[in-house]
């Protein structure tokens, strides 16, 4: 079991409120991603759940038990840190065994569990090495190994992939998702990368300045962002946000249109513009189009659009794909 409930949880450092009171429900077995820009408080939120920071107010429940005052060791959670935080003076074997040793488990049982975890994570050949002799990806696996041997109620990941290079990051992302499929244990994963959030999460929690902006499945957030912040944060490239008279024509203060929801034509359309920079990804091309009266609009088109800098184009928003926001930046029905 691993059901975590936050009730009016808040955090202040001195006079600075980092997290105003928030409520959140994390179901057993869910893969929840906290996503938001750097310094938004998502890591602090994770550390509050872990018990590494004391809450300033509110209640944290784990499996229905009040864990607010419990020390980290007694919450039954395991954490994987951004820096891996392996014990540099211990071998991989002793690193993975450490939580079991702290739990006072029988040495034979420990050895069996460590071997099993190492086999799952392809670390069998490295058990007698020190962390300093491993690559970044291997260290990350050791950190995960140390977490899984405890069979925790939930795993907490604090930006675990940000120290890895791009190719490795994609691999580890898949490995962690597979691990979740196998173990079916609750996972809370903190990242600033919305691609990680979209690809891995069952449920995304978008955090901004300590506040929860929106909670929902990746596609919910993509299809119906609750406000301008979520609209701009989820989706890549960013949603085009258009203000002024054009938005007013649609009864909104700001209107949002994703690059993939605009049709492109060289003959006719709603808006007329000039192609600026184009980014070729092979499968797709993202064109930056300067539209009179609207400003710069990003449009997605096929890999072989053939359009060049300075070409005149026409843009037409796809029907029913437009997002409208009011003066407070809230989505309008």
């Amino acid at each position, binding site marked *: 079991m691993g059901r975590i409930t936050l009730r009016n949880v808040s955090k202040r450092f001195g006079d600075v409120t980092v997290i105003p009171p928030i409520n959140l429900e994390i179901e057993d077995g869910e893969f929840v991603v906290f996503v938001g820009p750097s310094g938004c408080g998502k890591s602090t939120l994770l550390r509050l759940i872990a*018990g590494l920071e004391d809450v300033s107010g509110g209640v944290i429940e784990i499996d229905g038990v009040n864990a607010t005052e419990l020390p*980290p060791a007694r919450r039954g959670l395991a954490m994987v840190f*951004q*820096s891996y935080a*392996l014990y540099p003076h211990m071998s991989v074997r002793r690193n993975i065994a450490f*939580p079991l040793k*702290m739990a006072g488990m029988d040495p034979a049982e420990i050895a069996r569990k460590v071997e099993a975890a190492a086999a799952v994570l392809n670390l069998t050949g490295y058990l007698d090495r020190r962390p300093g002799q491993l690559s970044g990806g291997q260290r990350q696996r050791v950190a995960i190994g*140390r977490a899984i041997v405890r069979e925790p109620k939930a795993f907490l990941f604090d930006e675990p992939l940000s120290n890895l290079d791009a190719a490795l990051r994609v691999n580890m992302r898949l490995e962690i998702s597979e691990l979740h499929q196998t173990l079916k244990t609750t996972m809370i994963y903190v990242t600033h990368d919305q691609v990680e959030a979209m690809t891995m999460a069952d449920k995304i929690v978008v955090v901004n300045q300590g506040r929860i902006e929106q909670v929902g499945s990746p596609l919910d957030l993509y299809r119906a962002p609750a406000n301008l912040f979520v609209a701009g944060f989820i989706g890549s490239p960013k949603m085009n946000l258009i203000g002024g008279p054009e938005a007013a024509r649609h009864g909104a203060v700001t209107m949002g249109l994703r690059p993939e929801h605009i049709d492109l034509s060289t003959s006719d359309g709603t808006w007329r513009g000039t192609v600026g920079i184009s980014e070729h990804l092979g499968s797709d091309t993202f064109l930056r189009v300067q539209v009179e009266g609207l400003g710069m609009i990003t449009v997605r088109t096929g890999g072989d659009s053939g359009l060049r800098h300075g070409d005149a184009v026409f843009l037409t928003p796809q029907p029913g794909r437009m997002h409208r926001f009011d003066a407070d930046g809230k989505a309008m029905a």
Partner: protein
Amino acid sequence: MPDMARKTTSARKATVTALAWTVGFLIFFPVLWTFLTSFKTEGEAIAAPPSFLFFDWTVENYLTVNERSDYPRHFWNSVVISVGSTLLGVLIAIPAAWSLAFVPGRRTRDVLMWMLSTKMMPAVGVLVPMYLIFRDTGLLDTKSGLVGVLTLVNLPIIVWMLYTYFKEIPAEILEAARMDGASLRSEIIYVLAPMAVPGIASTILLNIILAWNEAFWTLNLAAAKAAPLTAFIASYSSPEGLFYAKLSAASTMAIAPILILGWFSQKQLVRGLTFGAVK
């Protein structure tokens, strides 16, 4: 032009080497001179111009010094006082440095500065009250009294050194230990201490040396029974006039043990003193 700066010609290298040797020799010279003088007769010791190597070498001073004073007792007192005050200091400083490094508060920097500021005051400023306290509590001329006062004198340095070492240990590793179920005790024993061993070792070494050489308090608060080697040297400098050769012999005997300790642990000491300066 960055290229020029990196070109090290052999002439330049030779100049720098010569300069380094000169500075090294200048620093070492007083010790060497003391050593040489200890093998001269009293007459040769004050001869002008002094002879450098070509004099009648004699061990007579050492024999006289050994006859007139009790070297083993002073030596033993020095060992007890320097090792005792260092170990006591480290025992107090480890938890202090732990909390300063890993549970910093708003006033942590102030506390550190305040501790260091006690080292900026001349010791003689508190000599009279300290003397009176020692007299009234019967600590005058006792080893435990000197251990106590040297612990206090060097404690700021010990805390500072350990704090610097602990600071180098990423807090996330200790947090990982906490998540892994370690109690504060296990965290310190299994994770912090093994990672800080080099730092703790060099702190201990440096402070033994500092305490061994400490002369102000040891001379003023101990005269006979508890007097360490500093008093042993000092006894050849005053009442009956100056005896340079015997003073030199006593000094050589007093600094020899710590010099040998320093020689064998120099790697550890250099690493300790430059810790954190270069990664």
